[in-house]
């Protein structure tokens, strides 16, 4: 007999284990959670999204994705823990309840399934997807440089061998196109949060430009609140600000696309950095990382609920 009770949330898992967990999770919480198939990856793997909903048509929604860079294992693990936390806390947490009584939450735990499978089978440090083009030796596109907004600009690379290769065209990658089609088709997303690791940051658009976005002040204050909420859990300090001023110029990225597509609350997270492990964060830190991240996400969700637009 299989159940999510026997799943270890403080361990890393393979793609098959995660997809099996998703099936069990959905079966056990079918009143609140469903699984949506939004497309296929380059290597024909299913791209799955968890939908948390208390019902009602055409609700406003919040998007969370983890694992767009496949080697950032802590992000997938955090996505799993947070999904479980949502169902655990729903009855006890009045803020979450209020959010879910008005909005739906969508979580894509493995945004880059081909890359993730490859990190388990061949190369633990693989970042990109696995797409290939005729006549080009190097494989893989950096899925976080393949979005339409600012495509091809500073902080992305046209060299297919680069880790920040942007791909041949905007949304050329099925993993990106699936999300774009889904979010555009839905039409009512109000927040989009893309989770990466590591360098302890909460950031907002733009990445492709130094120009402040029109909602800069609100996003700055919300990032500050999120970071404060995160700090209160385990005392971990994050920095925050716009992507281009806090980290570096990066073009064709998820959250710039989100913002320019009308999703005002667009944030990118960089999870824990202990300064010792990089992408190889020990599994013992999964739960603490997820716990603090959840509080930051909850802050953004609450603000999104309380500030309709």
């Amino acid at each position: 007999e299989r159940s999510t009770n026997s799943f270890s949330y403080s361990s890393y898992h393979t793609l098959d284990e995660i997809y099996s967990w998703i099936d069990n999770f959905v079966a056990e919480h079918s009143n609140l959670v469903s699984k949506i198939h939004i497309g296929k990856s380059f290597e024909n793997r299913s791209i799955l999204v968890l939908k948390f909903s208390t019902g009602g048509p055409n609700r406003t929604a919040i998007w969370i994705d983890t694992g767009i860079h496949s080697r950032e294992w802590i992000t997938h693990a955090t996505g799993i823990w947070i999904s479980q936390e949502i169902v655990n806390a729903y009855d006890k947490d009045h803020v979450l309840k209020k959010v879910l009584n008005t909005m739906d939450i969508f979580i894509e735990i493995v945004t880059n399934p081909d890359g993730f499978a490859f990190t388990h089978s061949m190369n633990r440090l693989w970042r990109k997807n696995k797409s290939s083009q005729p006549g080009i030796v190097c494989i893989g596109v950096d899925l976080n440089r393949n979005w339409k907004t600012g495509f091809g600009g500073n902080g992305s690379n046209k060299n297919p061998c680069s880790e920040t290769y942007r791909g041949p065209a905007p949304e050329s990658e099925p993993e990106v196109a699936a999300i774009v089609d889904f979010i555009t088709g839905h039409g009512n997303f109000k927040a989009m949060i893309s989770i990466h690791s590591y360098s302890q940051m909460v950031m907002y658009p733009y990445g492709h430009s130094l120009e402040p976005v029109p909602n800069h002040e609100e996003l700055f204050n919300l990032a500050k609140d999120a970071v404060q909420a995160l700090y209160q859990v385990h005392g971990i300090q994050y920095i925050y600000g716009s992507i281009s001023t806090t980290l570096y110029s990066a073009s064709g990225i998820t959250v710039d696309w989100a913002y320019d597509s009308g999703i005002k609350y667009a944030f990118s997270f960089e999870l824990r950095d202990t300064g010792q492990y990089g992408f190889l964060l020990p599994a013992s830190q999964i739960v603490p990382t997820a716990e603090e991240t959840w509080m930051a996400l909850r802050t953004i969700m609450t603000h999104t609920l309380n500030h309709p637009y």
Partner: protein
Amino acid sequence: QVNFTGDQVLRILAKNEKQLSLLRDLESQKPQKVDFWRGPARPSLPVDMRVSFSELPSVKLYLKSHGLAYRVMIKDIQVLLDEERDAMAKSRRL
């Protein structure tokens, strides 16, 4: 599985924009030998760079010759990967 025995991750603290630029040059010179885990962004942020075992002497020499201070963040990546794999196997058994 790719074996990362002897590969290291170096954490570099660039003092200024000029030193960051030297690190960016390193990336363009050796795009497949040096893997930036945290890219050269601004002097207040550390740069983390995975260097393959075979490239370590030349990269360390490059850093030293340009006065770039660094410390070894991960001494041997494969050791951590082995630990990670063992932990997953143990968890699966449990």
